[in-house]
């Protein structure tokens, strides 16, 4: 016996779980009533989206999505759709479900990244063919201009401008570099793209080479991405075998070769001048711009540096036209963006959404909400160069300008969600420490400013802060932003400034009341055993790693504050709620 129809019931989380399971059971009952339960299978599936107003079900083979909230709805779907074969238009749950648009990740999940044939089957290398045989360099740049695409690495510089600069310089050698030095904590969309669709990057770089007159490409990739490296190597070999890379590409007179260079994982090497220094075998330190690499870059020659995600867009822009990409997104930010959702969120993962999607949609519709139903506190975008965005701006559409106005940046697309257990001072300190550790030390504002800021933040988290520290922090931040040599130092204060801007109250609590509301700063909290609740079970004393708890069986226990390291093990161990953390 084979089923003709399938009904997928998406089972939500938390309070919705019970409701959704009931709908699932009612579907089965109804099918039995109609005596068609041997033709239709009802299945429970995991939902990645929250829906508070009804259960979402999908009916196969027609692939129809319905929202179902009562027995009547169930009867309708079964009688009209399953038996009658008609769509129940009142219950349709269309469009809202699919917020994602896949341009960059178009092939991820569909092709085998190690099979060039499958990439070609998905119209791979058709854009390259079009560029070589049908388009002039100006045509290509015109399409990029129309598409409105801006660099996806963080700064958002219009891609067509970069290409134009390099194209217009007269030089015997030009280079195309792909920046695959993805370094933001919590961001891994580039790794995923390289691992899932390496040929799209090779094709885009070859297109850039043909357009600007370059014959050498370099992918600067971190050595921590061994799988991406392996797949790129396979891809390069396969493309060469088929004449899509190397000499006389597709039988034309155009030659282009790509090699890999490994980065050692220094954050600053994502900055283009430092990246170039690293490729040249020098210490990875930035140098002042201008001259911009597009004019004078690797070995003093014009060099285009595009990020992985920018590159992945390019074949699609050529094939579908610049206007097509420009039709997606907002006024100033066109196309899609891949975000890596991590932190205190239910469904961690990658999502490619049109520019202009709101943070709320990202967190609740795609991310499935906050883990364990805790209260949302802030979202961090743009990594150590970005900032924190609080609840009140959740409905802001995400684009380059809006994020900048909120004191953050688009960055490479990392989004880390924080809940009420996260301390803002601690988070600001964490990101700042990252930048301080990664500072190359070449320019004083970054080297000294970063350290000074970190000291002041540490002072506050230790309960030794003074109110005068806040204006002082702001002053140092401004100085770093203005005087640092490269993006690392200029952007390092962003997490601190945005934290101060949106959560000044929490800083003041640390300073004035010597309290950490999230209970993260260990110098501001104390653990105590509540005498009226303690029954003397000894669990806490056994859990304590430093033997700071004394007390006999069935007697009230006491924590020795001098020995306590505030690890919280006693709080977790106590089954009677007798340990308090203040």
């Amino acid at each position: 016996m084979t089923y003709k129809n399938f009904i997928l019931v998406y089972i939500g989380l938390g309070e919705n779980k019970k409701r959704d399971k009931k709908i699932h059971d009612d579907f089965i009952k109804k099918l039995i009533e109609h005596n068609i339960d041997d033709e239709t299978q009802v299945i429970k599936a995991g939902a990645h989206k929250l829906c508070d107003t009804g259960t979402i079900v999908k009916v196969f083979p027609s692939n129809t999505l319905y929202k179902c909230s009562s027995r009547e709805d169930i009867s309708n779907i079964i009688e009209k759709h399953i038996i009658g074969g008609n769509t129940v238009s009142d219950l349709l749950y269309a469009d809202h479900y699919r917020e994602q648009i896949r341009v960059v990740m178009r092939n991820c999940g569909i092709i085998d990244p190690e099979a060039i044939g499958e990439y070609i089957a998905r119209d791979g290398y058709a854009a390259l063919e079009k560029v070589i045989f049908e388009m002039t360099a100006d045509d290509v740049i015109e399409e990029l201009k129309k598409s409105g695409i801006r660099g996806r690495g963080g700064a958002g510089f219009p891609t067509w401008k970069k290409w134009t600069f390099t194209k217009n310089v007269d030089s015997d050698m030009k280079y195309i570099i792909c920046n695959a030095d993805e370094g933001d904590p919590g961001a891994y969309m580039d790794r995923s793209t390289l691992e899932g669709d390496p040929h799209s990057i090779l094709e885009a770089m070859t297109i850039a080479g043909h357009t600007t007159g370059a014959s050498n490409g370099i992918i600067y990739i971190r050595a921590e991405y061994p799988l991406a490296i392996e797949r790129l190597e396979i891809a390069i070999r396969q493309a060469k075998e088929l004449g899509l890379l190397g000499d006389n590409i597709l039988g034309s007179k155009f030659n282009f070769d790509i090699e890999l260079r490994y980065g050692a994982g220094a954050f600053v090497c994502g900055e283009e001048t430092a990246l170039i220094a690293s490729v040249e075998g020098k210490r990875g330190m930035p140098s002042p711009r201008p001259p911009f690499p597009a004019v004078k870059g690797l070995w003093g020659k014009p060099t285009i540096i595009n990020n992985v995600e920018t590159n992945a867009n390019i074949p699609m822009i050529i094939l579908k036209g610049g206007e097509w990409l420009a039709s997606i997104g907002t006024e100033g930010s066109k196309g899609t963006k891949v975000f890596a959702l991590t932190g205190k969120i239910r469904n961690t993962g990658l999502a490619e959404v049109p520019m202009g999607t709101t943070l709320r949609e990202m967190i609740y519709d795609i991310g499935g909400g906050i883990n364990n139903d805790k209260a949302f506190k802030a979202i961090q975008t743009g990594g150590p160069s970005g900032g924190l965005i609080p609840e009140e701006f959740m409905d802001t559409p995400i684009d380059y300008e809006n994020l900048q106005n909120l004191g953050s940046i688009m960055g490479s697309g990392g989004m880390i969600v924080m809940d009420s257990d996260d301390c803002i001072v601690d988070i600001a300190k964490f990101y700042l420490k990252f930048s301080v550790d990664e500072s190359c030390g070449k320019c004083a504002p970054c080297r000294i400013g970063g350290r000074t800021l970190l000291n002041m933040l540490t002072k506050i988290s230790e309960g030794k802060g003074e109110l005068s520290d806040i204006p002082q922090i702001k002053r140092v931040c401004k100085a770093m932003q203005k005087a640092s040599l490269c993006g690392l130092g200029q952007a390092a204060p962003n997490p601190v400034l945005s934290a101060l801007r949106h959560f000044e109250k929490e800083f003041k609590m640390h300073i004035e009341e010597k309290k950490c509301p999230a209970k993260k700063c260990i110098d501001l909290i104390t653990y105590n055993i509540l005498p009226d609740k303690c029954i003397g079970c000894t669990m806490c004393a056994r859990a304590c790693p430093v033997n700071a708890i004394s007390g006999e069986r069935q007697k009230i226990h006491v924590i020795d504050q001098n020995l306590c390291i505030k690890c919280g093990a006693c709080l977790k161990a106590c089954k009677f709620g007798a340990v308090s953390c203040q």
Partner: protein
Amino acid sequence: MKKLTPKTIRAFREEQKAALYDNTKIRITIGMGSCGIAAGAEEALETFREEVANNDIKDVVIKQTGCIGLCYAEPTVEVQVPGMPTVVYGKVTADAARRIIDKHVIRKRLVNDLIFDNPTECAITL
């Protein structure tokens, strides 16, 4: 293989398309990005291969693909059986892989509690 030219690449593409979209075959596509592999995709892949061999199932393509973005549900596997809905299974352990072969591929019914939504099936794909 011979180098491609504008003349030959089109024929080659059509040939590859026919293979990639051949709906008469059973397709098991495993997400093998770093995230999938870290979550145990290699074990799932091995189990699928073994089970297909053990049960002598014909016309199956088992292949790897990149990450589809559902990191919380890795390893993820897309299963296409002719005449059945294409679904993405998540958290595919070796045991789950055996259940999928037995129930979905052999007995032609979907497996409860393992299906996650399919994000590759969205507004615009090529």
